[in-house]
């Protein structure tokens, strides 16, 4: 809660520090002083900043994040509209990431310095360093262009068209999932490597446990903790919108919404979006902490 209060102050300050006048932008070429003043007054922008902040905070606490300068829709409805797309992409990406990272990281930890390990290292370096928009464009060119298997972008709800939903999800999820997966692979490799070297693994072997049991319960089980942490961080990052990928695939997610509101100096929307990202981070951290206690008895009281 304290963190959230701090975040809200910083969000508000940052947003208002951005140079540019939303009213001037909204009026564009039709600018005249009368309309400017009326609009400023109506949106409350003529009031002192501190007063603006408390007005905003007061309604934000009750769930009212204000009204968009640009469209006149409520911020909550704008965010709610974008939320399913973002959730879908984030969850699908983290799934792709884990599907890549766990096997690849584990195998390279089991055979350090082998060909597979080197291959995995190259792949994950590649995944970390290749720009996601480039990978996105290449995928679109190949699968949507040349092969024509998948639509090049857009989003439909799962309830409307399950097949179309999946077809449109695959490419963006693969792109963002590869980037996250590359990061997570490195973590899986190092944490499994560390877990294998632990003394208790030798105890387990000396007991005469089958190799698979040693691996599952004495290596993987102990490598889980760092994996949960890094997955949480990656998921938080994915949930706060992957702007570039969203734009390339015309994916109507929160990243795009935030970007558009920056361009339009649409303060209420921008504040609402950033506040939501902060909440997402906090919630994910909380969940990660709860998972810790479930995984590691040493943390339990």
């Amino acid at each position, binding site marked *: 809660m304290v963190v959230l209060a701090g975040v809200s102050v910083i969000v508000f300050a940052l947003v208002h520090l951005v140079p540019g006048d939303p009213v001037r932008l909204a009026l564009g070429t039709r600018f005249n002083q009368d309309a400017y003043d009326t609009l400023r007054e109506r949106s409350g922008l003529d009031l002192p900043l501190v007063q603006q902040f408390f007005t905003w905070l007061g309604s934000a606490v009750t769930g009212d994040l204000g009204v968009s300068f640009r469209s006149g829709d409520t911020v909550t409805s704008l965010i709610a509209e974008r939320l399913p797309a973002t959730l879908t992409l984030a969850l699908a990406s983290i799934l792709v990431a884990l599907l890549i990272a766990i096997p690849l990281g584990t195998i390279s930890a089991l055979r350090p310095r082998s060909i597979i390990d080197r291959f995995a290292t190259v792949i994950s370096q590649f995944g970390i360093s290749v720009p996601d928009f480039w990978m996105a464009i290449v995928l679109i060119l190949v699968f949507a262009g040349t092969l024509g298997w998948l639509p090049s972008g857009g989003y439909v709800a799962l309830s409307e068209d399950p097949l179309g939903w999946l077809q449109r999800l695959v490419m963006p999820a693969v792109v963002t999932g590869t980037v996250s997966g590359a990061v997570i692979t490195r973590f899986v490799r190092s944490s499994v490597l560390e877990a294998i070297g*632990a*003394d*208790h693994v*030798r*105890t*387990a*072997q*000396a*007991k*005469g*446990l*089958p*190799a698979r*049991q040693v691996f599952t*319960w*004495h290596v993987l*089980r*102990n490598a889980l903790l760092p994996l949960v942490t890094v997955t949480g961080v990656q998921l938080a990052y994915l949930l706060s919108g992957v702007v570039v990928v969203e734009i390339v695939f015309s994916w109507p997610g929160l990243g795009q919404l935030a970007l558009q509101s920056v361009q339009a100096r649409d303060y209420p929307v921008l504040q609402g979006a950033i506040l939501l990202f902060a909440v997402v981070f906090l919630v994910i951290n909380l969940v990660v902490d709860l998972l810790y206690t479930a*995984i*590691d*008895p*040493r943390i339990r009281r």
Partner: protein
Amino acid sequence: MSAPVLEVEDLRVRLRTPRGPADVVNGLSYSVGAGETVAVVGESGSGKSVSVLALLGLLPQGVATVTGRALLQGEDLLTMQPERLRQVRGPGAGMVFQDPMTSLNPVLTIGRQLVEGIRAHTDLDKAAARRRAADLLGEVGLPDPAGTLDRYPHELSGGMRQRVIIAIALSNSPALLIADEATTALDVTVQAQIIDLVEGLQAERGMGVVWITHDLGVVAGIADRVLVMYGGRCVEDGTVDDVLENPSHPYTRGLLGALPDLAQPAVDGVVPDLATVPGVPPAPTDLPKGCVFWPRCPVRGDARCETEQPPLAIIGSSDVALPHRAATWCTESPARAGSTAVSGTFGTGSPGTSGIESPRGRLR
């Protein structure tokens, strides 16, 4: 003596290291009978832990090359198929490790760690295996065995954890128990309790025990036989009385000379410095030619020391079941060697020859 439980012949371990191959164990041979305790003594880096880890195939694969023979109840551990080796780990040989703080899995309960070992070798169901686990915990002297099953390692003290590890090692009634520095990480009173515990269990079950240690006090307390390792070789072996009362290798004499002598009075309130064996053990990547000990040896009484490796030769009577052997060119006892007063040449403020003559008095 009945057929030995463990018979090791010419065990050699070579490790691949960044600085080239390291010959960590170089031709070790010994045997352990049922109900017998063999202590393997040596400094850190003398190859004693590696030599027992190699027996059960617990050295990292691809790094270690193990040759020789190691017959456990007649079956060669070193040429065993992996699945057979897995079956032998536990019922054939149980192992107790050095550090009880890290040798248990921190995220699994004690009960689970015992039960999985029991169930890997029997077809007991979970409930039966749990009962057996509780019995074992009682046997190793833990209070509230049933309650301990549901606790995690971090909830137990070091001594209690070591008891748990012993219970795990014993859970499949092994013919051989290998204790790798099992009491080194524990404080002295707990050490004594653990040693008593193992001795008691050994008497009950008739296990052979291999006890790796660098603590000569422990050796005097529990061993029937002693094997002194240096530079990956056995430099002296024999019954505990022979080796401790008549140490014949300069290294063994040095080790015994380095023991504190409680009987020796302080001079003007100052306790005399402990004797030391100067220098450090040789790097296994670069073992000296000749006798492995010669660079640190205070005697070097023979021209062959630096060029020719001394064989493990019988000292004294060869007519006994367990002859006393030492691998050195200078085997004369200090008394017979006369002027080559070995003990006096080790380090500073040596307790003198009187210490060598009766080391056991100080060990007890």
